[in-house]
């Protein structure tokens, strides 16, 4: 019974969300053609997204790179192909781990703060107040956040890629006694540009998902402080799930 109940509740949430996100998207699209753009707010949001996420993104990346090196050593050591560690580490970080892990971290960090901020503004009537002060809340609150997270995700992922590959290098060379020159050569020799670009494309798409989901959850929040809490949780969970699903779809599409 409990399982049925929770499936029912999840379906209800899904239906609720499927109504909300296209609605938010339509509002944003309707405003894309004309100014004002509030560039100052976009810059400020970019700064905030960067400052909030850079430490977690880099920390996640460096340890992931280190673990990748250790784990692939275990596998490749069994058939004496240790020289391939470098290629495996860089490929998996660029194509997969960089964008996905940074996406999940940003969903937790930035998505939660977007939803909580906008939700609080909704339930304390600040969004209504913006409207009565001749300011369009979608332009003023939602669009700068959405743009900021779409722009910042690829930048964060570039840095995370670099730091992650560096983590793999440090472990391979200093712990697993690989030759540094061979390692570096193997890191880049088998790479193609598509490996790098596909990661950035994923990053931008994940940024869009985080921005849209968490802004919509906050913007359409109802029910006081409890409602803000629920909206925040939903923003993080739904962003994270959608990132993993979108990752599969994008990967399958890029492979073709």
């Amino acid at each position, binding site marked *: 019974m409990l399982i049925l109940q929770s499936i029912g509740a999840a379906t209800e949430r899904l239906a*609720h969300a499927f*109504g*909300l996100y296209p*609605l938010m998207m339509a509002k944003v699209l*309707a*405003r894309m053609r*004309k100014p004002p753009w509030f560039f100052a707010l976009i810059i400020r949001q970019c700064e905030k997204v960067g400052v909030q996420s850079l430490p977690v993104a880099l920390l996640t990346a460096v340890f992931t790179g280190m673990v990748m090196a250790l784990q692939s050593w275990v596998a490749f050591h069994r058939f004496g192909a240790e020289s391939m560690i470098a290629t495996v580490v860089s490929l998996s970080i660029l194509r997969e781990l960089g964008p996905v892990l940074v996406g999940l971290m940003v969903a937790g960090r930035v998505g939660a703060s977007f939803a909580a901020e906008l939700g*609080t*503004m909704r339930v*304390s*009537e*600040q*969004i*209504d*107040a*913006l*409207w*009565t*002060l*001749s*300011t*369009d*809340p979608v332009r003023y609150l939602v669009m700068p956040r959405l743009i900021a997270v779409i722009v910042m995700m690829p930048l964060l992922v570039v840095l995370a890629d670099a730091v992650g590959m560096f983590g793999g290098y440090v472990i391979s060379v200093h712990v697993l006694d690989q030759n540094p020159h061979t390692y570096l050569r193997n890191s880049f020799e088998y790479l193609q540009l598509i490996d790098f670009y596909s990661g950035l494309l994923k990053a931008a798409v994940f940024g869009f998902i985080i921005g849209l989901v968490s802004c919509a959850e906050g913007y*359409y929040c*109802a*029910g006081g402080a409890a409602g803000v809490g629920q909206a925040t949780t939903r923003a993080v969970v739904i962003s994270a799930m959608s990132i993993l699903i979108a990752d599969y779809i994008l990967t399958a599409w890029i492979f073709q």
Partner: protein
Amino acid sequence: MSDHSLFGPTQIAPNCEKTVKQGGDAAKPFDDQTAPKISLRNVHKSFKGRKVLDNISMEIMPGESHIVIGLSGAGKSVLIKCILGLLRPDSGTILINDEDWFDMSIEERLRRMPCIGVLFQGAALFDSMCVWENVAFVLLQQSMPRADARKQAEQMLEMVGLPDIGDKMPAELSGGMKKRVGLARAICHRPEIIFYDEPLAGLDPVMSDVITILLKRLHETMNVTSLTIAHNMKLVQAFSDQVSMLYEGKIYAQISAQELQETKDPLIRQFVEGRAEGPIRFGFESDMSGQPGANDKEEVI
């Protein structure tokens, strides 16, 4: 625009004319003194099947100060939000300056918005901005230089009895102070139609009197039209031309302040005298079935 004091000798043109003239496709300045500023016709609004506004019709003439009274939960704030376009009524028409704002695009509505000022029930200050930035919000959006905007905001703050708090954040203020900052923000851009949602709630008796006098002054010197939600009978007496009582979703009575004091109607008497026993039914008000829910989401701005 050198003298910004409301109490000064200069009469400042309200913001509305300026903005209406700017807009290319906007109508000419609205100066017809015989047509109502705000008019509602057969407005219905319900939440989840519960009628909150039930066939409301009313007119507010230029320069009139109209007060709405009613039990808490009667739908007074919902009434204001419908007029402002924050909630879409289920049926009926709402005209501001003879125009139906619900027919307009977002841009057209926003272009007309500077002629309106609103004091929200919970003040609704932006808590990411300091007090003076809150008060000067519209001026800053209209790209007035920061120094000028700040000067004007500080004058407004002084008027509501809060000098020297311009740099504080809203979280540092008491409820009554927030309310007064909200009032300063509502009038800072010199609107010609102002909505006050319980302007005296949370104020001490002395400050209530100060604000009552201030509202009266604004009304007299700037010829503003206002719709006020209030429970304070002193304010009603001092400030109102017309009083509407909202009860069970309908306008139970629309009378002058004088008539409000003299009426023999038992329901109004009970409200005015603030007694627990009398004909007023509370079941309607305490019915909580109208909690905000998912299906109300589409109608918000």
